[in-house]
């Protein structure tokens, strides 16, 4: 019998799958520390755990030399406050940041762990082979370069908080080579971890391992571990497309790795881990599939900072500082304004007065006049930043140069926007039309909550990198820190027992899309499942949030889970992993709605005013817990960031001195 799925997309006889297919075949691996996801955070976690003498399994869905959001390169190491030339100490900086209108919301001990360890982490990477200093003296005399250390800073040349990476293109390759050299590390690539395994198979119980599937062979994996670290980024980097998705070209619009599908947060939620509550969210920012190539459109910000803009007649657009005061020199674009301790966000920017566009004073389109910049800035933008930033060395630098673009002679067009958005301070240059959503309305979860050890509320389950709210370069220091903590945990506990019933249930779930292939009812593609979930979120998790809309959304998701999700098909291991990723997305959507629900519940109970709320779901019940504001500096913890940090790392120091 020819089933419906046999007919779908079969124009001609399809080619054979290029790898041996071994669905259901089991690999059992015993390790001490299991690292799930080996981007910047996971790679550092694996390295540091292994150096403590424990066995480590590092697992990634993709090849580690290019995996994760930093996998295609990294142009600068942001928030490297602990570097000795930074104008502030991490302790001073964290206090200032806590008062910042943009950062304030999320500043906590995890931000501190990130900035405190970032310089050490960069030096560690240098030992592994990363070149970030300007040894070649190409930028000698440039205002962003330290003549003694040959370090090149970005954005804020006075504060010296961000370091440009001369060879950031090779960032992940270097990390993988480092992992390969560690005899305690075993690497598993193309393996998607699909679920955590817990003691007795119960929610809230200690993590004892995880199960997964290989996207080339379809093989099954069962890892037994004494501690587990999730470093899978999840939804904090605006990539899961919970609200929007285009089926034809979805990955090109992503700023971060398209394999960032929320698997980690989904499995932590299902295991009953505590999450940070969220106040407001909805609608995705920066995930439109038809935006401009990232960093490949004329603009004055971010990687293109501090590029001049001109109108279509060549008239220069004046700049203002972070306070909106006019500035006249190029050098003022990269130093704090009078009375400003450090630049932060918003940075200085060209002020595009919408009235002047209306009156014809400014003729559109605008152009980024990189050719007018001093040589060091021009080369820093085009060669150093665009040359090393993720997915720009080939896709922008090489591609545009070959297409005839010449930064010495040419200007690059800026996107068109509405007048209102041209005048707005924060603009989304890369998507063309600015998105009016405020920052808090991004497709962003702060994710799993952790303690000072970066351990979640589940015993033995750690979370680091973007997974616990620390994106970008800081992921490395967070990863190194959690790798040490997870190794220490593994050293002091006995191995937990894998619950075979939990393994059996997970295995059945994992292979269901393959096993139902002969069923004529199995006619739902992974893309259809994804778009179905998007519609739920567009309708029931948008601007209007009420308890009934929230319940309706959860009911809708549940209805899809019980019906269409049980009809999704997978014709090969690739599609199988895509279906499983969409099932992660479905869980992510549920998390958003449950967090909404938790807010209403808290309101109803009148609980927790002025406190920090955490949410978990155990046995179908939503459980809200509260902690004092700044609980991380209150008993049982020490009153300062530094004391707590040193205390957590105390064993690490002993280990080093003993060695």
């Amino acid at each position, binding site marked *: 019998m020819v089933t419906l799925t046999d007919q779908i997309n079969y*124009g001609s006889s399809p080619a054979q799958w290029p790898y041996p297919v071994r669905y259901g075949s089991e690999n059992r691996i015993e390790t001490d520390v299991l690292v799930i996801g080996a981007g910047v955070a996971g790679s550092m976690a694996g390295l540091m755990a292994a150096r403590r003498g424990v066995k480590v399994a590092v697992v990634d869905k993709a090849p580690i030399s290019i995996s994760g959001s930093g996998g295609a390169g990294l142009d600068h190491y942001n928030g490297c406050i602990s570097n000795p030339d930074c104008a502030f100490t991490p302790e001073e900086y964290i206090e200032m940041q806590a008062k910042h209108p943009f950062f304030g919301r999320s500043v906590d001990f995890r931000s501190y762990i990130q900035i405190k360890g970032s310089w050490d982490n960069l030096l560690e990477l240098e030992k592994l082979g990363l070149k970030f200093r300007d040894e070649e003296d190409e930028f000698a005399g440039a205002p962003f370069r330290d003549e003694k250390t040959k370090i090149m800073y970005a954005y804020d040349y006075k504060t010296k908080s961000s370091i440009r*990476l*001369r060879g950031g293109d090779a960032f992940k390759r270097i990390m993988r080579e480092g992992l390969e050299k560690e005899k305690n590390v075993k690497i598993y690539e193309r393996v998607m971890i699909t679920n955590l395994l817990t003691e007795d198979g119960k929610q809230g119980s200690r993590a004892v391992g995880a199960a997964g599937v290989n996207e080339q062979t379809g093989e099954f994996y069962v890892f037994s571990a004494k501690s587990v670290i999730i470093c899978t980024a999840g939804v904090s980097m605006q990539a899961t497309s919970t609200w929007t998705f285009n089926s034809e*070209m979805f990955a090109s619009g992503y700023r971060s790795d398209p394999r960032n599908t929320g698997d980690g947060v989904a499995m932590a939620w299902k295991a009953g881990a505590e999450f940070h509550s969220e106040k407001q969210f909805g609608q995705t920012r920066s995930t439109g599939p038809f935006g401009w190539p990232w960093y490949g*459109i004329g603009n004055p910000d971010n990687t293109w900072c501090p590029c001049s803009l001109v109108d279509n007649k060549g008239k220069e657009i004046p700049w203002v500082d972070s306070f909106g005061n006019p500035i006249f020199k190029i050098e003022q674009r990269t130093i704090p304004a009078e009375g400003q301790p450090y630049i932060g966000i918003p940075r200085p920017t060209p002020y595009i007065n919408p009235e002047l566009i209306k009156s014809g004073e400014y003729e559109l389109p605008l152009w980024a006049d990189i050719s007018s910049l001093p040589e060091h800035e021009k080369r820093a933008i085009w060669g150093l930043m665009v040359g*090393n930033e993720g997915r720009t060395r*080939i*896709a922008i630098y090489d591609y545009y140069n070959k297409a005839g673009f010449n930064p010495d002679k040419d200007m*690059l067009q800026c996107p068109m926007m509405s007048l209102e958005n041209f005048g707005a301070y924060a603009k989304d240059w890369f998507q063309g039309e600015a998105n009016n959503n405020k920052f808090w309305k991004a497709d962003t979860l702060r994710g799993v909550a952790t303690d000072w050890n970066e351990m979640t509320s589940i015993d033995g389950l750690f979370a680091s990198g973007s997974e616990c709210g620390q994106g970008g370069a800081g992921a490395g220091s967070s990863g190194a820190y959690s790798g040490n903590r997870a190794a220490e945990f593994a050293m002091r506990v006995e191995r937990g027992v894998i619950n075979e019933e939990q393994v059996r249930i997970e295995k059945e779930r994992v292979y269901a899309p393959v096993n139902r292939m002969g069923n004529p009812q199995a006619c739902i593609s992974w893309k259809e499942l994804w778009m179905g979930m998007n519609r739920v979120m567009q309708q029931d998790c948008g601007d209007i949030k009420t308890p009934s809309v929230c319940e309706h959304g959860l009911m809708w998701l549940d209805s899809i889970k019980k019906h269409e999700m049980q009809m999704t098909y997978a014709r090969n291991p690739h599609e199988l992993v895509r279906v499983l990723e969409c099932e992660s997305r479905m869980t992510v959507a549920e998390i958003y709605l449950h967090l909404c629900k938790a807010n209403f519940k808290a309101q109803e109970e009148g609980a927790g005013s002025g406190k920090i709320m955490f949410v978990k779901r155990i046995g179908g019940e939503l459980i809200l817990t509260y902690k004092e504001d700044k609980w991380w500096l209150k008993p049982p913890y020490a009153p300062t960031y530094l004391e707590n940090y040193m205390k957590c790392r105390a064993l690490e120091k002993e280990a080093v001195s003993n060695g």
Partner: protein
Amino acid sequence: MDKAYLVPNPIAPCQTVIIDVEKCVGCNRCADHCRTQTIMPNPVKGKAPIVIYPDECWFCGCCIAACKNDAIKMHYPINQRVFFKRKETGEVFRIGGPYSPPQSYFKPPVG
């Protein structure tokens, strides 16, 4: 000329990366460096890999960086091809468009 096939529609607007089968030696390094499995090895050993899932391409360029034979080209869709203007002459060109000037900037990226 008089042949036609019953084939599905193109899965993505464009092919994203194009492999030159003349230059390709079938080493599969590109497939091994593709995070989304957009490029998959050819089941026939030694033949050029297949760009099977262009809709999932992130345009990260890791396949091109991995290729030792310069056999892969990136293909931006029309909607992502931006203009640039030569300051001295005022001429306007489009990335990947017609009448593009020849490459005149050859400095390698920094680092």
